[in-house]
């Protein structure tokens, strides 16, 4: 990301608020989420299960469940009407027309035609459930291209073979005729990535893409997504709970808790200068290969049930640093730098000065030293 190049915003989630209507009552799953995404950058959304990270991205794809009600908010997607076909790249076209659309206001048919798969593609957690077991790999990769761009079959076939090679599958021609069950888990996920890339999307959303895979395959898949992102200059959103994965891939990090973003910053700010007690907890709870501690740190308690909304800060009951005001009033976002802000009353000028836990502080200092020893400027 060079400084001279102007950052192009392609997705903007503004004050999103979503409720699910269930038989047990209304679940307030998303409570005012803001996310900005620029071309060619990677944003990670981190949080425990049920924190609303997947729901936010499903809203951006227009594939929310039927019982979801959007109370307010906008999801502005900036796109270029590429009349030029599948290979059209607005970067090289001076007359490119840029348009904006609020995905939440568009009807399903429009989203299906213009967004899903074509401009925003998604990679899901479990490759076996996202592939059709009755269709050959080749057919599944060609399907999207033929549907969206009406290219002929031979062209689609050649492109599919090229995609398989791009994602690191050998004997691509042979694989085209095979079925998903004939491939290993890592191979299947590569196929899913090839399908996602088939229509040249501007944005790739990866929903826990490696949770179902082994560590050594996870490392390869992450390196693959990174390589493809660089070559094609696309934006990537990672939804994950693994901070190790985040450290490897992300430029910016959003930490979510109970349907709210509690801390946002660039990768170094989140890892080396975290401000929210929940982020402290998450970082402390990571198993650290560098120490010989006998016990793992845990965040006490469990995530709140959003069926029963709580007054004040949702994290307060699990927060050792909670102030009295946390039980009464939800904290706003306090800005720390241009890119870094956190929702905790501890950052209010009137709050008592609280430092992060000592163990975490030592750990961050050690991490910084290790990074400096490897030539980084921190």
């Amino acid at each position: 990301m060079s400084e001279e190049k102007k950052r192009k915003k392609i997705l903007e989630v503004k004050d999103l608020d979503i409720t699910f209507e269930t038989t047990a009552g209304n679940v307030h799953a998303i409570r005012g989420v803001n996310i900005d995404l620029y071309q060619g950058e990677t944003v990670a959304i981190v949080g425990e299960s049920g924190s609303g990270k997947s729901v936010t991205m499903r809203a951006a794809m227009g594939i929310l469940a039927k019982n979801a009600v959007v109370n307010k908010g906008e999801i502005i997607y900036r796109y270029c009407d590429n009349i030029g076909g599948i290979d059209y790249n607005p970067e090289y076209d001076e007359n490119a027309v840029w348009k904006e659309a609020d995905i939440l206001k568009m009807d399903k048919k429009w989203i299906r035609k213009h967004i899903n798969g074509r401009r925003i593609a998604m990679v899901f957690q479990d490759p076996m459930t996202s592939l059709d077991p009755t269709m050959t790999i080749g057919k599944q990769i060609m399907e999207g291209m033929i549907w969206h761009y009406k290219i002929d079959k031979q062209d689609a076939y050649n492109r599919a073979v090229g995609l398989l090679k791009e994602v690191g599958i050998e004997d691509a021609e042979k694989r085209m005729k095979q079925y998903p069950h004939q491939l290993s888990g890592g191979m299947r996920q590569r196929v899913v990535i090839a399908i996602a890339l088939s229509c040249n999307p501007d944005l790739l959303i990866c929903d826990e893409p490696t949770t179902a895979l082994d560590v050594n395959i996870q490392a390869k898949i992450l390196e693959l997504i990174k390589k493809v992102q660089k070559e094609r200059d696309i934006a990537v959103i990672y939804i994950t709970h693994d901070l190790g994965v985040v450290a490897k891939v992300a430029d910016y990090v959003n930490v979510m808790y109970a349907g709210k973003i509690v801390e946002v910053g660039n990768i170094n700010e989140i890892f080396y200068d975290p401000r929210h007690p929940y982020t402290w907890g998450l970082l402390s709870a990571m198993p650290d290969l560098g120490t010989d501690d006998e016990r793992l740190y845990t965040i006490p308690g469990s995530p709140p049930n959003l069926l029963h909304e709580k007054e004040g800060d949702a994290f307060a009951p699990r927060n050792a640093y909670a102030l009295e005001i946390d039980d009464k009033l939800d904290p706003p976002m306090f800005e720390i730098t241009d890119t870094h802000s956190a929702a905790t009353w501890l950052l209010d000028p009137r709050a008592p000065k609280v430092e992060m836990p000592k163990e975490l502080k030592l750990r961050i200092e050690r991490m910084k030293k290790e990074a400096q020893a490897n030539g980084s400027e921190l």
Partner: protein
Amino acid sequence: MAANYNAEPLLEVKGLKQYFTVSKTFMVKAVDDVSFKVYPGETYGLVGESGSGKSTIGRSIIRLYDPTAGTITFNGMDISGKMSRQTQKDLRVMMQMVFQDPMASLNPRKKIKDIIGEALDIHNVCKSAAERDEKVEAILTKVGLAKEHADRYPHQFSGGQRQRVGIARALILNPKLIIADECISALDVSIQAQVVNLMKDIQEELGTAYLFIAHDLSMVKYISDRIGVLHLGHLLETGTTDEIFNNPVHPYTKSLLSAIPIPNPELEKNRIALNYDYKTSGIDYTKGTEHLIDGTHYVKCTDEEYAKWTK
């Protein structure tokens, strides 16, 4: 109570083979010539990727499968062949298992106290219903649940609590060895740490040994005293946690360790994990024999490989 390495091993697996016949011409060698020991009160971690045979080993040891070859000695009894009634009964009491998915391994139609108390009924441990309730309550408090939970059903619990029920069920007969098969992989990260800490506390108090089967090396590092690395049914390297993490010898172990993402962005950004491919590595697992590195650290390889790797 710390692990006792001077005592007789609690579990000794020697040359265990577990083959499955798929068809007349095709046989899957899920576990091929695996030997290791588990001492009283220690945690032995078995790690490997999916398909490496780690779960099969657990299931062969608790005799859900009949081993094809090899001997398994548990608490002085030979449990690999046909067992006498008494041996079978002892095995079922002294060895217990905790499964991966707590929702799938708890009967949804039974109350927690009946799920946990079932073992007590089968083995006629309690004389009265009151005694049984008392025992169930005691074990519930031990795993960090309240006695009010005894009358609830599995669906009324969160994932972490359900896994605690699974652990309580395994503990009720006071076993000597618990086989934990991927028992934390289905849980959220923050809950994983809670369950691992609980298992450590219980071990300290009761001296139970664990055979901890997992693919997440960073968690295994926290809980295990010793580790065995499996690949394609072969136990490639075994040693104490320090020996494996600080001085990995086998290329597969090295690649496995390098694949763990380090939560340090400046380091991790440009790091590429080591690549290991069995087919192109030129290593033949079947030719390897056990070589001692030092202490309790063994690696399975041929003499030439040993000379090359330890140079």
